[in-house]
C-alpha cells in the first residue's frame, strides 16, 4: 500500500487506512495484491475462472472479511466471480467495493459477480462501495451482479453505495429467501455529468414468514440518467416493502419502476416511489441559518444519501 492512489481508492471503497484486521483479499489491476485467511474464514483462488471462494465456518462470530478491488490502469476489462459460503449461525461483516482511477483514454471496467450462500440462522452485513476518479477520458465502468440465497431464519443486510465518478453502471441483484429469512437492501446512488446507472433488483420471497425491505435513495445531477427496477415477488406468507426516493436536478432523467407481485393470499407487499426536486422550504430553512443556497443543497443531498 505504498502508492498514494491505492490508498485513496482503498479508503473510498473500504474505509481502509491500513491492512485490515481479519480476513482480506485485495485485487489490484487484475491481480492479487494481498490476502489473509483466518482460522474461521478461508479465502481460496478459483481454478476454473477468475475470482475467489470465501468460506466462513459455521458459528463464526464477529469477524470481518474485506475484499476491495482497485484499478489504477487504463484499458483493464475484467469479470471476477466471488462466491461467499456463510456457515450456519455465523455472524460476519463483509466489505467489498471497487475503486477505479483511470488515468488514460481507454475504458476500464470491472464486472463483479458475487454469490452469497447464507446458512441457517446466519447474519451477514455486506457493504459495497463504488467509486471512480482519474484525469483520463477513458470510461470507468462497474457492473456488479449479486445473487443471494438465504437459508432458513438467516438475516442479511446489504448496503450498496455509489456516490461518485462511475461513468456507467448496470447493477443486477437477485435474492431467494427461504422460511423466516430476512433481507434488507439499502442502495445509495449519485450520478453526475453524463453518467448512466441502472439497478435491477429481484427479491423472491419463497419461504413462509420471509421478509424483505428495499430502500433506494438517489440523486441525479447534470445530464445523468438513472433507471430503477426493484421487484418483490411474494410466493408465501411474507412481508416486503420497496421504497424508491430520488432527487432530480439540472437536466437529469430518472425512471423508477417498482414492481410488486403476490402469488400467495397472505403475502403483504408495499411499494412507494417518489421523484422530485429539493424541497424549497428545506433550502430556505438552511439559508436562514446563514448558509448559501449551494451549501444548503449539498447538506440536503449529503443527508439524503447518508
Amino acid at each position, binding site marked *: 500500500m505504498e502508492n498514494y492512489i491505492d490508498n485513496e481508492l482503498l479508503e473510498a471503497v473500504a474505509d481502509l487506512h491500513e491492512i485490515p484486521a481479519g480476513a482480506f483479499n485485495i485485487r489490484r489491476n487484475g491481480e492479487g495484491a494481498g490476502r489473509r485467511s483466518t482460522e474461521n474464514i478461508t479465502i481460496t483462488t478459483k481454478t476454473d475462472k477468475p475470482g475467489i471462494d470465501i468460506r466462513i465456518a459455521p458459528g463464526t462470530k464477529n469477524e470481518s472479511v474485506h475484499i476491495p478491488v482497485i484499478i489504477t490502469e487504463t484499458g483493464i476489462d475484467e469479470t471476477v466471480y466471488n462466491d461467499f459460503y456463510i456457515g450456519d449461525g455465523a455472524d460476519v461483516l463483509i466489505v467489498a467495493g471497487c475503486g477505479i482511477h483511470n488515468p488514460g483514454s481507454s475504458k476500464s471496467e470491472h464486472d463483479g459477480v458475487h454469490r452469497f450462500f447464507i446458512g441457517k440462522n446466519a447474519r451477514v452485513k455486506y457493504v459495497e462501495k463504488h467509486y471512480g476518479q482519474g484525469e483520463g477520458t477513458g470510461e470507468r465502468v462497474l457492473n456488479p451482479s449479486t445473487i443471494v440465497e438465504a437459508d432458513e431464519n438467516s438475516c442479511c443486510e446489504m448496503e450498496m453505495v455509489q456516490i461518485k465518478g462511475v461513468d456507467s453502471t448496470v447493477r443486477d441483484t437477485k435474492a431467494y429467501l427461504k422460511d423466516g429469512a430476512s433481507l434488507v437492501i439499502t442502495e445509495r446512488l449519485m450520478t453526475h455529468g453524463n453518467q448512466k446507472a441502472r439497478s435491477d433488483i429481484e427479491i423472491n420471497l419463497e419461504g413462509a414468514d420471509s421478509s424483505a425491505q428495499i430502500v433506494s*435513495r438517489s440523486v441525479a445531477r447534470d445530464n445523468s440518467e438513472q433507471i430503477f427496477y426493484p421487484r418483490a415477488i411474494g410466493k408465501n406468507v411474507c412481508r416486503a416493502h420497496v421504497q424508491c*426516493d430520488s432527487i432530480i436536478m439540472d437536466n437529469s432523467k430518472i425512471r423508477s419502476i417498482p414492481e410488486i407481485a403476490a402469488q400467495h393470499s397472505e403475502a403483504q407487499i408495499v411499494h412507494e416511489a417518489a421523484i422530485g426536486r429539493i*424541497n424549497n*422550504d*428545506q433550502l*430556505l*430553512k*438552511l*439559508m*436562514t*441559518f*446563514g*448558509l*448559501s*443556497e449551494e451549501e444548503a443543497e449539498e*447538506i*440536503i443531498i*449529503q*443527508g*439524503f*444519501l*447518508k
Partner: protein
Amino acid sequence: MLELKNISFTVDNSDGALEIIDDVSLTVDEGKFTVITGPNGGGKSTLAKLIMGIEKPTGGSIIFNGTDITDMSITQRAKLGIGYAFQQPPRFKGLTVRRLLSLAHGSELPEDECCAYLTNVGLCSREYLNREVDSSLSGGEVKRIEIASLLARKLDIAIFDEPEAGIDLWSFTALVNTFRAMNKNVHSSVLIISHQERIMQLADDIIIIADGKIRSKGPRDEILPQLLGEFDSNCDFRTKC
C-alpha cells in the same frame, strides 16, 4: 434596531393585483419583546417573511441596525443576526436533530449543549439527538425542534411564526417560560407572531395587523386590554347562553 418604512407587498392574481401588505411602517427597538397578532390572512406571516428576506417587498425599505437590507438575500440577513422559526417547519430525510441544531449554531454543538436546548423546549433530549428530522416525528416535535434551532443561535432579532401552533396546551406553559427567558438571556430582540394571550402577556409591545395594515400598536398595557375587550364584545355566545 429594525425599522420597516412604508413596506408594501403585492401579488398578481386572476383578479389583478392583490395587496397583502399595504404601506406598513413599524419599529422594533433593541431589547424589546414584540408580539404581532391579528386575524388569520391579515398579513402577519408575510411581514415576518419580508423581514427574513424570504419574500421581497414591492415597495418600501427595511433598515436593520442602520443598514438598508431591503435587497439583501436570506443568507446575508441571517449573517447579520436575523433568525426565523417557520410556522410549518420542513422535514429533512437523513438529517439528525443534532446536525440541524449544529447547522443553526454554525459549528458542531457538544452533546450537553444540544440537550439543554431540547430540554428547554420540552423534549427529552437524549432520545432525540440522533433521530432524523423526518416524517417519523410528530408535528409538535418538529415545531419544538424548530424553536430549539433558534435557541442554538445568538441573534439580534429572533422571529417566531406562531410557535404555539401544534403544541399541546399541557406543555405550553413551559414553553412560555422559555420565551420569557429568551429575551433576557439569548437574543437581543424577540418578535413573535401569536394568538396566545399568555405570549402576549410577555410582550413589551403589541402590534395588531389586519387586512395588510397596522390596526393598532403600542405598549402591552395599552393594547392588550383593548384586544381582550374586543374579543369579549365579539363573543356574543355569552349573552345568548
